[in-house]
């Protein structure tokens, strides 16, 4: 870890205590369990791919990782987060080396691929074993009833890992930029979190979306109701695109094709560079006779 030159230290020199505090803080990264949970959440909201992650887990002989993953998946399933850490990706697995979970060099990784495409993701990243620091928050209790947990028609087969069916289809990858207009910050090219003034995504919002998406294959009517409720509660949302896709999917499954097409048309107009257009096309293709 870099240290500033000595002349920057406070008068009297940097105390040993301060050094110890800073040193302790440097080791204070997220635990593997925390990253796993975060990966699951992201996987449900965005195409977090973990081909490299699973490769890494395998390379490190992470039996513990596997077990923890199962526990985490089971917990999520019970909690109603039916993504179960397994989301369908459309990117073919690549043979990229697993990235290091350590501070990276300033140079951006050179990856010979034009744009990220989805892959099958089993779970978020594994990291060196480390005890979890705090209990994970519980998911909503608004779980689809057991009767509603019928196998998903078309996605279950592709999205099952270690016997845990994925109830939720992943959203598509961020292959193209979301819009055609983003202009990076001049100096460090650090973009604003979002161009719209939408509030941050809360756990409850993400959870509601996950639940709606889990409902789509088994009860699209209820899924649509939940989406509409979310739209009323949060007209402006960072997850508006994801929400819209779920609504379109639900409408198609209900046979309300014209409505679905209208929303799809509106979606394309509103988000011409969306990363979800591929997914939208797939939905529409499925609805064609």
């Amino acid at each position: 870890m870099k240290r500033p030159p000595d002349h920057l230290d406070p008068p009297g020199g940097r105390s040993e205590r301060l050094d110890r505090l800073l040193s302790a803080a440097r080791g204070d990264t997220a635990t593997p369990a925390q990253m796993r949970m975060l990966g699951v959440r992201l996987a449900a909201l965005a195409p977090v791919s973990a081909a490299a992650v699973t490769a890494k887990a395998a390379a490190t002989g992470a039996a513990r990782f596997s077990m923890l993953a199962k526990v985490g998946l089971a917990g999520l399933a019970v909690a109603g987060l039916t993504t179960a850490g397994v989301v369908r990706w459309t990117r073919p697995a690549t043979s990229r080396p697993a990235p290091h979970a350590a501070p990276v060099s300033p140079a951006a990784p050179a990856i010979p691929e034009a744009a990220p495409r989805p892959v099958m993701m089993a779970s978020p990243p594994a990291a060196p074993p480390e005890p979890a620091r705090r209990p994970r928050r519980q998911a909503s209790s608004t779980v689809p009833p057991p009767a509603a947990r019928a196998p998903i028609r078309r996605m279950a087969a592709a999205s099952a890992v270690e016997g845990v069916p994925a109830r939720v289809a992943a959203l598509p990858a961020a292959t193209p930029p979301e819009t055609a207009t983003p202009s990076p910050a001049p100096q460090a090219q650090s973009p604003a979190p979002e161009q719209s003034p939408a509030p941050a995504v809360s756990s409850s919002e993400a959870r509601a979306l996950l639940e709606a998406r889990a409902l789509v294959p088994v009860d699209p009517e209820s899924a649509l109701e939940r989406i509409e409720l979310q739209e009323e509660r949060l007209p402006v949302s960072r997850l508006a695109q994801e929400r819209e896709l779920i609504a379109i999917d639900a409408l198609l499954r209900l046979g309300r094709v014209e409505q679905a097409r209208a929303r799809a048309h509106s979606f394309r107009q509103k988000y011409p560079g969306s990363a979800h257009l591929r997914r939208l096309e797939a939905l529409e293709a499925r609805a064609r006779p």
Partner: protein
Amino acid sequence: MNDASLVRRSPPPAPPAFEEVFTSHGRFVWRALRYLGVAEGDLDDACQEVFLVVHRRLGDFQGRSTLRSWVYGIALRVAADYRKSAFVRRRSSAEVTPEASVASALGQAEARQLLQRALDTLDDDKRTVLVLHELEGFSIPEVAELLGCPVQTTYTRLHAALARVEREIRRSQLTRVP
């Protein structure tokens, strides 16, 4: 054809895969958010927010800065938005516990709390410089670029931040309950 035209014609580097970004930087972004003032209970949401933005904007990344700087730039904005919330400020102040002052040993949790309390006394600019340089390992020129301020200003902020944190730590030692 001269070098300049070759540079102009060469395509921008392909953006890395999202999973690689998440795997490489997730844990460290999480740490940075924590020391940039995001409360423990909100770390997951904030980190999720960062990587949702990363996911959506990754296609825009053109390599003008390092990927790491780009990701941390997003994290800084998320943390700044977070700190602006009055609700968060109220809750943060309420979250301070006396645990650190009564602990007999300087354990990891205590060290973290002490440092976080000291960091809480800094303004956002100084805090950001200290966290990026001391904890995240960015060089001063990198921090300056990330924050869009002169290098000398960055040095000044770091110096002031370290001095202030040092004072706060000494003060906490004096008021420490044995």
